[in-house]
């Protein structure tokens, strides 16, 4: 019986099916728990699903590469999901036309502050140059951030970690922060979390309000373009 179980496990643990299913179940559990709690900001579905899956991988000593064999099918959906952001953008075009100036200015200021504050603070803490370079593109969407980190001499694998953590931090803090400041404009709130915390922030914005989600999506797309132009210049300027 034990031998059968071991054989079954050794088969399942190397097939994509197991970790693909586990990822879906962990996310469903995380989403159900978040809903049951009334979707408070700290119950972030990405964070909770990771906290469910990580101990399982650890306990079964499953390498990340094996896990990703299955999870890659979900990871792949990030691409079409980014394309899909065009629909809320299209729906909001009439209001976006009226807010072109705030959008352009807030994007420029927000993107510079996101990268410059990370580089400046990291220097103040005396972090190693390659860590600082890995931090600089942290507010933009993961595939862009990895490309930038590689181009400027950072560590792409560290950047991946920092980008995800930034997204979770933004998604968790945006609602309490904006509520404390009594900011009620969904466009401004959504745009801010999209600039600072890319797709994970955008996912949170869609949870809170559809217009916040649409503006977060615009911010995410525009910041992907701007960060890839800005960070290499900024790093040359700030790290002589």
């Amino acid at each position, binding site marked *: 019986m034990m031998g059968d179980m071991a054989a079954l496990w050794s088969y399942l643990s190397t097939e994509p099916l197991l970790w693909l299913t586990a*990822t*879906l179940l962990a996310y469903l559990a995380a*989403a159900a728990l978040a809903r049951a709690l009334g979707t408070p900001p700290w119950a972030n*579905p*990405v*964070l909770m*699903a*990771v906290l469910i899956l990580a101990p399982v991988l650890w306990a079964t000593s499953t390498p990340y590469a094996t896990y990703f064999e299955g999870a890659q099918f*979900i*990871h792949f*959906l990030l*691409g*079409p*999901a980014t*394309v*899909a*952001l*065009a*629909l809320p*953008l*299209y729906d909001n075009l009439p209001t976006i036309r*009226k*807010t072109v100036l*705030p*959008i352009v*200015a*807030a994007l420029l*200021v*927000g993107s510079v502050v996101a990268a410059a*504050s*990370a580089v400046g603070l*990291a220097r103040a*803490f005396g*972090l190693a140059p390659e860590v600082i370079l890995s931090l600089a593109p942290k*507010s933009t*969407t*993961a595939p*862009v951030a990895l490309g930038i980190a590689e181009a400027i001499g950072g560590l792409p*694998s*560290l950047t*991946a*970690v920092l980008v*995800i953590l*930034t997204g979770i931090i*933004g998604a968790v*803090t945006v609602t309490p922060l904006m509520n404390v400041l009594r900011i009620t404009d969904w466009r*401004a709130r959504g*745009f801010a*979390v999209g*600039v*600072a*915390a890319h797709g*994970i922030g955008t*996912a*949170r914005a*869609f949870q809170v309000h559809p217009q916040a989600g649409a503006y977060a999506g615009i911010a995410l*797309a525009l910041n*992907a*373009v701007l960060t*890839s132009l800005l960070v290499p210049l900024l790093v040359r300027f700030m790290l002589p």
Partner: protein
Amino acid sequence: MVLSLAILLSCQLLGEALARGLQLPVPGPVLGMAALLVGLRLIPRLALVLRPTVGVVLANLSLMFVPAGVGVVGNLSILSSDWPALAVVLVLSTIAAMLATVGTFLALRRLGQGGA
């Protein structure tokens, strides 16, 4: 649903081809988003076709970050010694970026209303 997926993936494919072909620093899916926006402007009926599928995709956007998120845990050793400083940098910098963005957005919105 299949038609919607085909439209989304075609736009992404177009975006990837443009990004690589012209060696643009912009990721393919972002160009794909721009392509779909142009498509929606040209053929407004596309919105009706896409809406149900896009609704499901965007309502579950968090799911798609879970595989990358699990990678965070796999890479914890990189963070070993620097994690307290990194945590402070990430929290402060993310909040600073949100404050700067929201402040600029609202200031210029008021300016726009004042001028109108």
